[in-house]
């Protein structure tokens, strides 16, 4: 509850010596200054890592789609084209930034900012590992859902501000798609909170064990369905894969960010790729046992943190790979199919899911299906002989 990376690092000897040195140097107790320094470093590391993941995401996407279509993909810039995303970034910085005359200057400035602020706000609560989560907020899950709804607003204002019919339609579709798919995501996250009994990411992850059979995805059949609803919902929420209607190249000339050029468009793309990582991290933390390591190897020491970090990132990157693969395998949905699927299929199913998980909690006192089988088997064998 409310533990932060700074309070975690304070357990270590060198950090306490630094604190003693600082407070002696400045006279007053420099605990909050030290908190600030540790937070600044942790945030720079997290933002750097996530923009690297965002950049490499574009590279990975082009490479994976290339070899799925038997072509080579970018291999000019750097070894095997690794530095392609740096070249794209520099190009975006140097391209001319055209703001059409009738469009709204203020909204052109605010829309990418809302997207970036919405995504950066979520970085604070992403559960990298038990110690390295920047801020394990007591209501972290609700905070993540609230802050990431800013992106939907940014998408809409981007479309509305550029005053062209195409991007207006794209902005409208994007915003209504993002907000309507937020409900199945929230309802399936609620069923997990029901099982784990707390809203902070540490309680959500600690309620699961390291071994796959202790993950919530296999806890009971309803959470198994809930995982796929969350995955589909988060695909739609980040305008990815079969739901990338707002930026549908064929119809809307790349939708809401048609008029954005140069670095403004770069912010939309960066925000989208970082949000895909954050949303995959959410799915991994809720359903795939987050940063739990089997048999709790390495405990809570620094080695344990690194192992937990590795476990969380490998699960998230596996989901990231699934997102990229689904993009190049499934055709795009029409608007009405998209909305019908959300309102008439996903939301009723996730409501039934939530009720049935509650019933499962009451009936089996929160035990997972494997516990029941094992305890059932042991009772059977117990009474057997």
């Amino acid at each position, binding site marked *: 509850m409310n533990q932060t990376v700074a309070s975690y690092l304070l357990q270590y000897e060198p950090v306490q010596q630094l604190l003693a040195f600082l407070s002696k140097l400045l006279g007053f107790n420099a605990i909050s200054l030290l908190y600030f320094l540790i937070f600044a470093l942790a945030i720079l590391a997290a933002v750097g890592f996530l923009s690297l993941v965002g950049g490499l995401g574009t590279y990975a996407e082009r490479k994976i789609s290339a070899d799925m279509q038997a072509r080579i993909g970018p291999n000019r810039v750097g070894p095997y084209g690794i530095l392609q995303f740096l070249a794209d970034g520099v190009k975006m910085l140097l391209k001319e930034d055209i703001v059409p005359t009738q469009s709204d200057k203020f909204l052109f400035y605010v829309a990418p900012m809302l997207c970036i602020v919405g995504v950066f706000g979520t970085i604070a609560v992403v559960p990298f590992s038990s110690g390295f989560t920047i801020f394990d907020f*007591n*209501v972290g899950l*609700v905070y993540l859902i609230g*802050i990431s*709804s800013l992106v*939907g*607003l940014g998408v*809409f204002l981007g479309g509305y501000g550029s005053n062209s019919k195409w991007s207006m339609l794209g902005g409208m579709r994007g915003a209504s798609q993002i907000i309507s798919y937020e409900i199945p995501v929230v309802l399936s996250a609620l069923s997990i909170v029901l099982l784990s009994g707390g*809203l902070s990411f540490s309680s959500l992850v600690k309620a699961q064990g390291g071994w796959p059979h202790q993950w919530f995805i296999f806890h009971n059949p309803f959470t198994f369905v809930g995982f796929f609803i969350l995955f589909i919902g988060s695909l739609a929420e980040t305008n990815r894969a079969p739901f990338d209607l707002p930026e549908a190249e064929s119809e809307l000339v790349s939708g809401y960010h048609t008029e954005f050029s140069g670095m403004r468009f770069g912010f939309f793309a960066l925000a989208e790729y970082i949000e895909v990582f954050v949303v995959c991290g959410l799915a991994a933390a809720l359903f795939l046992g987050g940063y739990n390591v089997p048999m709790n190897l390495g405990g809570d020491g620094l080695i344990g943190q690194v192992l937990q970090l590795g476990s969380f990132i490998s699960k998230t990157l596996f989901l990231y790979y699934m997102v990229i693969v689904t993009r190049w395998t499934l055709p795009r949905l029409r608007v009405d199919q998209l909305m019908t699927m959300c309102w008439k299929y996903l939301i009723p199913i996730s409501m039934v899911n939530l009720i049935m998980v509650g019933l499962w909690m009451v009936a089996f006192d929160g035990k997972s299906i494997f516990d029941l089988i094992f305890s059932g088997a042991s009772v059977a064998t117990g009474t057997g002989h």
Partner: protein
Amino acid sequence: MFDKILFISSALATIVGAVLTISVKNIMHAAVFLLLSLLGVAGLYLTLGADFVAVIQLVVYVGGVVVLMVFAVMLTAGSSGQKANRFGLVKIPTMGNFRTYTIGIVFAALVLMTIIKLYTNVFAMSRLAQIPAYSPTVSKIGISLVGTHVLAFEISSVLLLGALVGAAIVSRPRRENR
């Protein structure tokens, strides 16, 4: 030290956002500044130790009400400020001119008088001698919602049902024309 920074920045965001919401000419900019003000209020809730109410403010207000307002502005043909009505008269501009603001400020001053009058006995109220430390509030709210306030919890679902059905009927495209 950081308590002061968080309070001042949230209060500043709230008040600057509110002033701009009521004074800016373009309605869409007013909605964006309302968003800034609501984020400020969420920050104020954090400084008051109400962490759950702050994030619910984020989810419901920032993620719902402002999006709905922006949709409504879009559907009413954006900022059509100076449209003359059927009789060709350009009435008072929709975003208010000097006259409307003076009326507003005069009446608001009256309201302020009554508020200050009210506050005299608020200050006389007995207050907590020692302000409690910040502690997580979710479980307390949850238990009170399920325990003492269970009736309010159930009635609010009936209220939401009424709002949903009513608004759906009103905004359903009618079969006949006007």
